[in-house]
């Protein structure tokens, strides 16, 4: 981390720890706006912070660590893509329909916290992304399995702006960063619990079977953090198609191992509403589907690699270092 990122991390750590998983848009969004985190990825010329994807990774990861349900990543991406700093925007994962002559007819779903957002950035059916005013979408709300608000909406001949960004990939990278944080948090909680909880006259953490399971979990959390970093670096080079696919795929796989060890180590207490493990694990399960499940990214990545051929695999992998 450079000095600026360390300051960003300290600020995010303090703020997100105090907000915690009970923070709501209604009560707490102003505290995010106060420190301009919604403008994290927006260029300085457009009134933003002008941060890199590596800066964003620092913040999104800590948001995941504290189980924050505020749409910080979504707002930061939307602002950067639409180049708007005046009001909160958000992003969506799915679009079906048609764009013709700058107007969109169809439906958009997987909108994160759409209510109260001024605009939505969604994948465009013709490639790139489209920006649409939320007022043009009749929103229907539902909750993700983690209790996070998601919306779907339809538009009829609504004006849109097309932009040359892949909002789906950006959303995927944001989720990878959040997964990295949430896995580390669930691991920390599990280690703490294993060292405290006594059974058979000793701490759970003294049992070799428990130690080995947590060590396996640690490897998965470490892999996710490294994948997030690799993809953030690649995004900065604007050559991230391979890296984002690989990172989301890797993060998705880590979620299964991590959440099952976390719950197994905690035993029945981890299954209660009262105990603060599910704020992490339920989010992890929801995020595994959002912005590309394993099948989606496998297809993208597998097709690309096979089309390039065996002889190019390693050369391609190393060519994107710079």
């Amino acid at each position: 981390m450079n000095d600026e990122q360390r300051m960003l991390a300290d600020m995010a750590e303090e703020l997100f720890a105090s907000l915690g998983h009970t923070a709501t848009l209604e009560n707490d969004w102003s505290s995010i706006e106060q420190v301009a985190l919604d403008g994290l990825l927006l260029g300085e010329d457009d009134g933003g912070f002008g941060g890199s994807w590596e800066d964003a990774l620092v913040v999104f990861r800590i948001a995941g660590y504290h189980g924050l349900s505020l749409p910080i990543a979504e707002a930061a991406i939307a602002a950067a893509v639409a180049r708007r700093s005046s009001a909160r925007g958000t992003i969506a994962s799915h679009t079906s329909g048609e764009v013709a002559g700058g107007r969109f007819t169809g439906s958009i779903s997987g909108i994160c916290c759409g209510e109260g957002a001024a605009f939505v950035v969604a994948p465009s059916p013709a490639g790139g992304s489209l920006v649409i005013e939320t007022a043009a979408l009749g929103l229907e709300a539902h909750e993700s399995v983690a209790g996070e608000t998601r919306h779907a909406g339809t538009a009829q001949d609504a004006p849109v702006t097309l932009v040359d960004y892949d909002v789906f990939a950006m959303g995927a990278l944001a989720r990878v960063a959040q997964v990295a944080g949430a896995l580390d948090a669930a691991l920390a909680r599990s280690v703490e619990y294993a060292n405290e909880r006594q059974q058979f006259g000793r701490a759970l953490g003294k049992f070799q079977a428990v130690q080995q399971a947590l060590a396996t979990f640690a490897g998965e959390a470490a892999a996710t953090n490294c994948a997030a970093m690799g993809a953030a670096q690649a995004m900065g080079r604007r050559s991230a198609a391979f890296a984002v696919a690989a990172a989301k795929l890797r993060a998705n796989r880590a979620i299964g191992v991590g959440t099952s060890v976390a719950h197994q180590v905690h035993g029945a207490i981890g299954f209660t509403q009262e105990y603060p493990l599910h704020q992490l694990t339920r989010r992890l399960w929801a995020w595994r589907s959002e912005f590309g499940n394993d099948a989606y990214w496998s297809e993208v990545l597998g097709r690309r690699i096979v089309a390039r051929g065996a002889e190019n695999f390693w050369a391609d992998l190393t060519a994107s270092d710079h």
Partner: protein
Amino acid sequence: MQTFVTERLVWPETASHLREKVRELVARHGVEDPVGRANSWAKPDPQFSRLLGAEGLIGMVWPKEYGGHERSQMERYVVLEELLAAGAPVGAHWIADRQTGALLLRYGTEEARRRWVPGMARGEVYACIGLSEPGAGSDLAAVRTSARRDEEDWILSGQKVWTTNAHHAHVMIALVRSEAGSTRNEGLSQFVIPMDAPGLSIKPIIDLTGGHDFNEVFLDEVRLPASALVGQQGNGWKQVTAELSLERSGPERYLSSMALLVELIRHAGWDRSEQVENLVARLAAETWTLRMMSAGVAAKIARGEDPALEAAMVKDLGNAFEQAMPELVQAVVDVDPAGPEPLGLVLGHLLQVSPSFSLRGGTREILKGIIARGLGLR
């Protein structure tokens, strides 16, 4: 908690030049045998080692005074991953380049450095590691091979086992008990032993594929001069532990099965099944991630840190990945693992040798113990 502190990877300016150079050398030398490609860092090929030595690609980070090239650790890392990814036969000099040369330069006497290191850098002098013994496998502190003083000399007696490529090596670094009556990790020292020393004998151990990498090495009253002591007398355990970080973190801990992935991609080129493509994606995502992790550890070592915990995680994850790969491929591709197709041959080889991946250089259980301790358990 962040178990693996990530940082932006900065590759050396010279990386693409070095990659081109290695690819050109490998192409010129030829790596046609698919099973050989899957056996890259175990397969000795002195001719190729000498070629790499002449091109300045061994002992890259060592001082020029000892035949090295004073390049950076990350430049060396680039060369290593290129060699392994291509499946080049680097087994002859691998251990000397990875740890023995570095150990001698750090702890060896001036006489030992002058005698061994320049030849290692030329790709002509090879080394083996004398750690395991019949009674000391994972429990390395149980070593019993002894060194006793005879005036200025040392007399070594005992037995080492699972010594890879002892029959090709010129020199062994052995961990032995130099203080009679000492126990566990006290009273241990490292010695540099020429493989042609009188009293040293080698007996092959044939592995389950019929291959010969392993050996037993017997030391029967082997007389060594005082200069054969490496480092401080009694400091052997600490020196070995530091050496193991080098042994555990390299790209060879996840690239051993790369030949299988490459053959699988080739196969997928005509077998357009969704299952095969999905498997390619999964394995590629894992490879890409492990590369980030392994290079991250290399960068930490380059700065003089000792990332023992991160190194253990890379080896554990890397081995688990390499070990899982043959089974996953076998499950989705209908190919005879006895050959003659290259994919089948590589698969058949790795099915049989992959159990060793989580044994050599520290078992999975030992590594997970190190990780658990690093997490604050125990």
